[in-house]
């Protein structure tokens, strides 16, 4: 019998399962596929603007931040930080200012916390910098990364195309392929030797984020020593390595803490009893042979939004929650879900499940539907995480609160 079943293997689900297992709960994490960390730069976006703290504290209901409070955000981040430090994946940042980070398209994004290798870009520092592309690597373009950035920062940014050693690969390489190659010390040495002559006089070098997966810290240090300059990373098109580093740390932390991780199964919720005595008894997971019941003292839905199937948007204008068929705050007129412009805020982004301060999904009267059912992360209504720059902040803080509430 599980104390907690977590559904969903994104940042929210992994973090929640890890927290629960560390508190001694028998925890099973069930996921239909992996989550969005592969699309993520690995940064922790809390709230854009001058001060993340201010952005969080000025959130109003029904925003999840208003439900959990800035203290919870801080505690959640601190817990994650400790894990990251212990896993050789240090982050920098603060709750009070946003770091400005360069992107592969020459824009900047703001994040409260970022992996060291990204934060070292330190755009506030005015020294010269060079951005390098890697020959044959199509998912990062140094010209695109530098042109607009130079214009915005009003200084010149040099670019260079650095070669990759060895014969031309027989297919296009992804960021993960390069990251694995960089973990081979021989390949790394040969690469640095080839690069050095092209980097004479360069002090600060921006590279696509391909400097190792599991052994990132070692790779980064080795490259900097060999090239004798400061290196920073810029996230590439997916598969995005800094996001995958974070995912790997969290997944392994879950496994080490004794979480049963079950990938590949779609989950459907089970409810026992009726009316006021109704409880979530667990979930039924669709295994290869057929349905399998997983009993649970509590169930936490971390299934995400429309992208990963926590919410399903139908042609007829209805939006459904995919595990317990919970009520979803949304607009039933399909034509209003999207804005005409891709870059504008999108109405569909705020659709989701309404919860109370304990992360219980609510019915139409505002009452918790089931005493032992919880929801967290992108599944929740009220947040427009892309537009607000609150993606990871909402994920981590609501996961924290949900685990707190689910495990007395």
């Amino acid at each position, binding site marked *: 019998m599980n104390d907690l079943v977590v559904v969903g293997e994104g940042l929210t689900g992994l973090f929640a399962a890890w927290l629960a297992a560390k508190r001694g709960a028998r925890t099973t994490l069930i996921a239909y596929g992996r989550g969005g960390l592969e*699309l993520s730069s690995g940064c922790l976006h809390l709230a854009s603007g001058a001060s993340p703290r201010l952005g969080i504290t000025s959130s109003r209901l029904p925003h999840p931040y208003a439900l959990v409070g800035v203290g919870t955000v801080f505690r959640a981040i601190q817990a994650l930080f400790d894990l990251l430090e212990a896993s050789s994946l240090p982050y920098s940042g603060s709750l009070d200012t946003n770091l400005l980070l360069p*992107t592969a398209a*020459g824009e900047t*994004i703001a994040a409260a916390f970022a992996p060291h290798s990204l934060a070292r870009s330190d755009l506030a520092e005015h020294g010269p910098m060079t951005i390098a592309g890697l020959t044959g690597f199509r998912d990062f373009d140094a010209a*695109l990364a530098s042109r607009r950035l130079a214009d915005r920062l009003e200084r010149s940014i040099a670019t260079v195309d650095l070669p990759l050693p060895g014969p*031309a690969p*027989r297919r296009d390489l992804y960021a993960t392929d390069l990251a694995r190659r960089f973990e081979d010390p021989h390949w790394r040495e040969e690469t640095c030797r080839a690069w050095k002559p092209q980097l004479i006089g360069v002090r600060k070098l921006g590279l696509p984020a391909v400097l190792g997966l599991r052994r990132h810290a070692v790779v980064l240090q080795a490259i900097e020593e060999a090239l004798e300059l400061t290196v920073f990373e810029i996230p590439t098109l997916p598969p995005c390595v800094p996001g995958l580093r974070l995912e790997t740390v969290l997944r392994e932390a879950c496994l080490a803490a004794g979480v049963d991780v079950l990938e590949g199964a779609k989950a459907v919720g089970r409810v026992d009893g009726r009316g006021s005595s109704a409880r979530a008894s667990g979930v039924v997971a669709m295994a290869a042979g057929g349905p399998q019941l997983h009993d649970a003292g509590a169930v936490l839905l971390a299934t995400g939004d429309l*992208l990963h*199937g926590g919410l399903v948007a139908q042609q007829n204008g209805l939006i459904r929650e995919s595990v317990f068929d919970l009520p979803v705050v949304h607009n039933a007129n399909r034509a209003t879900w999207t804005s005409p412009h891709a870059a504008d805020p999108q109405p569909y982004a705020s659709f989701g499940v309404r919860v109370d301060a304990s992360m219980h999904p609510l019915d139409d009267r505002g009452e918790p539907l089931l005493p032992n059912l919880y929801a967290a992360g992108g599944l929740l209504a009220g947040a427009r995480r892309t537009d607000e720059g609150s993606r990871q902040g909402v994920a981590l803080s609501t996961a924290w609160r949900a685990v707190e509430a689910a495990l007395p």
Partner: protein
Amino acid sequence: MPALSTQLLVIGGGATGLGIAWDACLRGIKVVLVEQSDVGQGTSGRYHGLLHSGGRYVLSDPPSATDCARENEVLRRLAPTTIENTGGLFVAAPADPADFPDRWVAACQQTGVAAEEVNLAAVLRREPLLNPSLARAFQVRDASLDSFDLLHLLCTSIRAHGGQVWLRHKVNRLLMQAGAVVGAEVVNLASGESTHVGAHLVVNAAGPWAKTVAALAGVDLPIALGRGTMVAMASRLVNTVVNRCKPPSDGDILVPIGTVSILGTTDEHVESPDDLTIAAWEVDLLLAEAEVLVPGIAAHRALRAWSGIRPLYRPAPAAGAETRELPRAHTILDHGVTHGIPGLVSVIGGKLTTFRLMAEQVMQVVAPRLGVAAPCRTADTPLEPTGRPYHRLPHRLGHLEHPHDPPAPQVICECELVTRPDLEVALGAIEAPDLDDLRRDLRLGMGPCQAAFCGYRAAGITLRTLDAPPMDGGLAAFLQERWRGLRPLAWGHTLRQLEFSRRIAAELLGLTDAPEAP
């Protein structure tokens, strides 16, 4: 202002205009063709890709049917690489009028459209997704035709024969002299420069804009605009063109073309040639009609929706016209005769399958006016060397797997297998291209991910290659254009794709400002 003179000025770079220019070139006539946008941005580039057997018109418009049947065979000789020989089916669903198929077959015989009844079990084996309850099925000579390929071939051929094709050149005014049209003032939309083009004759083949162009000479053309919406499904649900065997109506055709299958189409009267909006009910209707052909189609991914405008000659004005009932045959108007304004000939309507014939008929009016007696040679002059095979679906993947010079080239658009060399050639061949132009030429960004990856990759290449590109290589504008076609289908998996793309653009790449206006 710079000026040049030519014999024939053709306004409009769709299949009609290009066909006319091509025909003229082959008669030794000096031609300048001007097109306000890129090749394929008008109606010719917005259709469902059907090379008609003629079956759709045997009862409603028999002369058109006969023309289609004949021109179908001609085009197969002229441009085989733009055509996939899918074959076609006319299928009667259980609820369709039971007497229609026999009448239809008789009409096929009368009009010379090849049609043969086929065994339903064999049809279902060949096309396993089709409705198992179909009543009857007939085989016809439909095929799918890539209009972008065709239009590009025409451009290349015209230029190779000394004709001029000016893209992104818009006609500001028609030059008049003593009540006759003697040319046009044409502005280069990229540079803002205008040129006087003097011509012995001007042909107005401007499609949905024909009324606007004719008005420049004071001619009021009664043209009705019918907007048709189409939906591309993300994969080949069928490998044969499938038509409903019933009186023509909305959503009764499914065309496999390239890597997608297209559901077509609706017909809505519109006022403006730029009105390409798509209503939710049109998409719902197309999917509901297609359900009859492919049960459960709504569970398949709808890739994208777009619309095209059909210009139809409407001699007697009628309130709220049902544009579908108007004959689709083309109309050629020599304004010297019709309006006392010589020097201008307008051609309106028609369908892509018969473009060559239409051009020949226009030239029958035009050539004598130019004092040229040379006959039409388009039916016997292939647009590229003969002996080339029909287009086949696997060919892009086959080339990549078995490259002529290994290693295989870098793939920029993975969905549609567009390579870096393809892109570099296109960037060199097109004047001042943006990513959307490259898309039309190469199918860049036309696959399931709708440029989520290749937009960035191609933008980088564009940035490095062009003289004065936008700072983002045109990426934001391209993504916005892709967004437009996804919005009408924004539910289910298509909404997932849209959000995926948006998340990369906004959160990974930081593209949050509205793009510069196209």
